[in-house]
């Protein structure tokens, strides 16, 4: 029981990542309103970003910038364990920009759908399209 609690606390980021991902998935699948679906999609994307940033995080490490690394004139030895891994951060910068672009396209489509059919509810849209 104690070991289980230790694992739960030490990996809390990953548990929250799973919970957030499932909340986003629930929003996409269950909610009928298109706006709510888009919010669910954004939550799903941020959950994935949380997972990647959690991979790079380390205990007792600082941000990946070498202090006075540019003006010493000679190379300094760097212990990799003292710095957070910056590779997932760089990947996730791209993911955030892609996320906001996707959001813009999705909202533009939602506005177009509302202008055409005067509703944002999925079931009403299906009813209109069946006629």
């Amino acid at each position, binding site marked *: 029981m104690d070991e289980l609690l230790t694992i739960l606390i030490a990996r809390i980021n990953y548990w929250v990542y799973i919970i957030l991902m499932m909340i986003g998935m629930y929003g996409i699948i269950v909610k009928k309103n298109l706006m709510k679906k888009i919010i669910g999609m*954004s939550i799903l994307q941020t959950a994935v970003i949380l997972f990647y940033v959690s991979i790079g995080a380390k205990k007792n490490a600082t941000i990946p910038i070498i202090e006075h690394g540019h003006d010493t004139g000679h190379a300094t030895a760097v212990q990799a364990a003292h710095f957070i891994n910056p590779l997932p951060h760089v990947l996730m910068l791209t993911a955030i920009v892609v996320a906001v672009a996707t959001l813009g396209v999705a909202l533009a489509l939602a506005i177009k759908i509302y202008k055409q059919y005067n509703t944002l509810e999925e079931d009403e849209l299906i009813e209109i399209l069946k006629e």
Partner: protein
Amino acid sequence: MIWQIELIILMIVIVLAIGALAVKDLLSAAVLFGAYSFMMCLLWAIMGAVDVAFTEASVGAGVSTVLFVAAVFRTSRRTKD
């Protein structure tokens, strides 16, 4: 990484995510989603990903919320679920 602050923010993030999907008013949902994005940005600043944190604060929380509010004003504010 201060784990107490991280734990509190993780709780707030989950509550805000559920709240953004649960409220019946779409404008409130947009504002709650903006708060969710800002909490995520705080979480990344704590985890040492400062570049991701300020990109999220400007692009994720700022621009997304503005887009959402603009879209809600151009369409309807009510929702059935």
